[in-house]
């Protein structure tokens, strides 16, 4: 029988070294007895470890992480269970991925318990300030962890509370951080720490952030088990808070509505008067833009981010009208800035149309979509939405007075001409309307969505041709 006594500190490294040698010589788990600390060591004789490393075992990184945590558990079987898993891994390298294996399951539960304890120590340690003669402030705390985690957890506190001296005392071990150096001292009984004025403020905060109208004691106890309470000053108030809760809620319900303070009405009136509102008469594009931002003519405004009004020079000779803003346009509040906008930009550049010389807008001003997974999928606006939004489009045409308007896609063609006829037979030919000539063409999105690459290339060329034609027509003197 091999008896291995592990030290209280540096337990993992000692276990790893012993386990490596034992496994290297194929010593089976049942031939090893593990003890912790001095207790028991040397009481019985132990076979000497075989000399040399033997054939050192290979283990996945995940096992070392698991072992480093589990070894801190107070369960005296923990080192033996880990050694059992180490030997098991030599036969089944993927053992740890098998959550249904009884040994793996047991180790995972031990691991979970230690991890939780580490986390709770980070959460529930409460420092009190000590008098300090030097430049660094001094703090100390008393904590009773469930497992032997102080050494492993000290790093967290050094990284967080680097600029102050502190000590965390526990029954097993004290961690001390002085002038930026970490040291450990043996455990000791609970020290007497001086009162700290901040604790009263903390208690005030704890009592007031509590909402008496919603009591969920089970949830509180699940996350903050009673065993930790005695070292957390704020928990002393819990009984009184609970006792008063029901009364506070009833008092709230019983209290009659009070009269508003005198100044309230004046403040409200002043603020509301200064809020943006739709201008009563729209005489300019800027007024139209402001009014459009507040539009609630159809339901689309509920779901879209914002109205995307047209942009460009107020006297543009050429107006381009798309279907509706897409995902990017909706977020940025500008037309044609997404993927379809890039297709349009490229086509305009090829046709010699300068983007900053045309008025760019859409038939519908709000983005219509359905959320799917992590994305928003474009949906075609219906006739009702197009006709409601015509009001804004007509206003833009009236204020900009372009010589020619290009309808990009079927929705724009419908909105501009009133005809929903097939675009295939209409594109590239000017149609006369009461508000001026309209040239239908493809929508850049239709080109993007076209699965047939040859067909997409033809449509792209069509669009460039149409834009070039539009440019020449718009340049011609009015009345032509």
């Amino acid at each position: 029988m091999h008896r291995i006594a592990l030290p209280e500190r540096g337990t993992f490294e000692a276990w790893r070294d012993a386990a490596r040698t034992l496994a290297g010589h194929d010593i089976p788990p049942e031939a090893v007895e593990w003890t912790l600390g001095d207790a028991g060591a040397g009481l019985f004789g132990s076979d000497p470890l075989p000399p040399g490393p033997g054939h050192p075992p290979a283990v996945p990184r995940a096992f070392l992480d698991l072992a480093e945590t589990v070894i801190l558990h107070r369960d005296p079987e923990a080192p033996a269970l880990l050694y059992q898993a180490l030997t098991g891994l030599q036969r089944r390298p993927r053992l740890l991925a098998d959550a249904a294996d009884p040994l793996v399951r047991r180790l995972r539960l031990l691991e979970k318990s230690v991890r939780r304890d580490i986390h709770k120590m980070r959460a529930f340690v409460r420092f009190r300030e000590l008098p300090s003669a030097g430049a660094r402030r001094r703090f100390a705390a008393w904590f009773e962890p469930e497992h032997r985690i102080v050494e492993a957890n000290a790093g967290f506190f050094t990284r967080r509370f680097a600029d102050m001296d502190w000590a965390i005392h526990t029954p097993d071990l004290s961690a001390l951080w002085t002038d930026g150096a970490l040291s450990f001292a043996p455990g000791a009984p609970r020290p007497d720490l001086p009162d700290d004025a901040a604790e009263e403020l903390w208690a005030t905060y704890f009592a007031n952030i509590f909402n008496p109208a919603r009591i969920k004691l089970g949830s509180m106890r699940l996350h903050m088990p009673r065993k930790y309470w005695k070292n957390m000053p704020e928990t002393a108030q819990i009984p009184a808070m609970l006792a008063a809760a029901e009364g506070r809620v009833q008092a709230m319900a019983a209290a009659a509505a009070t009269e508003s303070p005198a100044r309230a009405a004046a403040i409200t009136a002043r603020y509301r008067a200064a809020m943006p509102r739709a201008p009563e008469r729209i005489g300019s594009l800027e007024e139209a833009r402001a009014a459009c931002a507040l539009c609630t003519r159809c339901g689309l405004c509920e779901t879209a981010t914002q109205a995307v009004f047209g942009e460009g020079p107020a006297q543009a000779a050429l107006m381009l009208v798309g279907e509706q803003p897409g995902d990017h346009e909706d977020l940025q509040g500008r037309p044609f800035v997404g993927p379809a906008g890039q297709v349009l930009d490229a086509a305009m550049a090829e046709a010699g149309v300068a983007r900053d010389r045309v008025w760019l807008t859409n038939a519908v001003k709000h983005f219509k979509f359905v959320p799917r997974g992590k994305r928003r999928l474009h949906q075609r606006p219906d006739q009702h939405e197009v006709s409601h939004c015509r009001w804004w489009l007509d206003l833009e045409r009236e204020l900009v007075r372009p010589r020619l308007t290009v309808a990009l896609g079927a929705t724009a063609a419908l909105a501009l001409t009133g005809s929903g006829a097939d675009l295939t037979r209409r594109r590239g030919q000017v149609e006369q309307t009461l508000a001026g000539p309209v040239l239908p063409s493809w929508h850049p999105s239709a080109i993007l969505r076209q699965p047939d690459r040859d067909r997409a290339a033809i449509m792209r060329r069509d669009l460039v041709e149409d834009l070039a034609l539009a440019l020449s027509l718009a340049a011609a003197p009015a009345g032509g």
Partner: protein
Amino acid sequence: MKPDLARKLAILSDAAKYDASCASSGTTKRNAARGGIGSTEGSGICHAYTPDGRCISLLKILMTNFCIFDCAYCVNRVSSNVERARFSVEEVVSLTLEFYRRNYIEGLFLSSGIIRSPDQTMGDMVRIARTLRQDHGFKGYIHLKTIPDAAPELLDEAGLYADRLSINIELPRDDSIRRLAPEKRPETIRTAMARVRGAREASRDRSHTGKRPARFAPAGQSTQMIVGADGASDAAILSTSARLYTGYGLKRVYYSAFSPIPDSSAMLPLVKPPLIREHRLYQADWLMRFYGFEADEIASATPEGMLDLAIDPKLAWALGHRAQFPVDVNRAPRELLLRVPGFGTRTVDRILAARRQRCLGWDDLVRIGAPMAKAQPFVTVPGWSPGALTDSADLRARYAPPPEQLSLF
């Protein structure tokens, strides 16, 4: 410390308690090894829990509860007679640091009533965050509740100091916002969220020189919606959430059961907060974010678009779609396993890893940690088939708590 600091803290934390969020997770990793104080290491830490079951992770306070807005659901509205107070910048900074040094908190969650103007208020809040970061080298967590009507430049600066920004959507429907919070504008709220998303995306792109810009709100943005103050159905609430998640990349939508407030407005119901409904909404929200459910699938279980309060939404969906069950645990794809009542994402991951090594039986699933009592009508494994159980008429009754017995008159 001044004697009135405690009074201010009482008022301004009491006023902040209706904000549900207290998260401190998911930001960049930082520590004080090279100066300053504080650290963030990925997972959030809850430093205490109050009897309402909520976690205290951050010092959650209002800078002031003076407010010029008149939101009916809010205790701090201008027309309320609640006691008012205002912290100075230095007081907030000092409280945060002193609490932090004693390990009471992970950082600061600062919100505020609106004083004088949205810009003025937001400017003061940004100053507090800047002082903590620049003058005190504070590396802990900062969450700023932003004011949507403030100047965009202030929002941009807030994102440089804060880990998380939040903008409350307040209510699930635009008409409710206009009715109950007349000074707030739904389109402005959404535009501000879009701006935060844009700034976050821009901060992740390297410039052409390969230089990384300053991180912008690395823990993302969140929002809060009040449940039960207007007539919105759960279906409406969930579809609003789905739009917020997809549109603005929100990390979280918090649902807050409308809670009676002192000196409340006559416009609102003075009833106990619908806590179970809030809980079911959180479960449904989880289904949308981690289980591949769409909003309309979840709420379609009932005709009125309300979630079943007696059973959880995943079970409710499964009971309404029994033709898809039972699923073979050893063969079903991940998406289908995630739909089994009782199977969480971790259980499913463990099943997928373990079944590569062996065929899983009932006892294996128990060891994996799967709640088989709940899942049994919906799964098959070698040696177990639910048979007629999946389609039995009284299946729902097995899960729903028995109706409360009427007391004898």
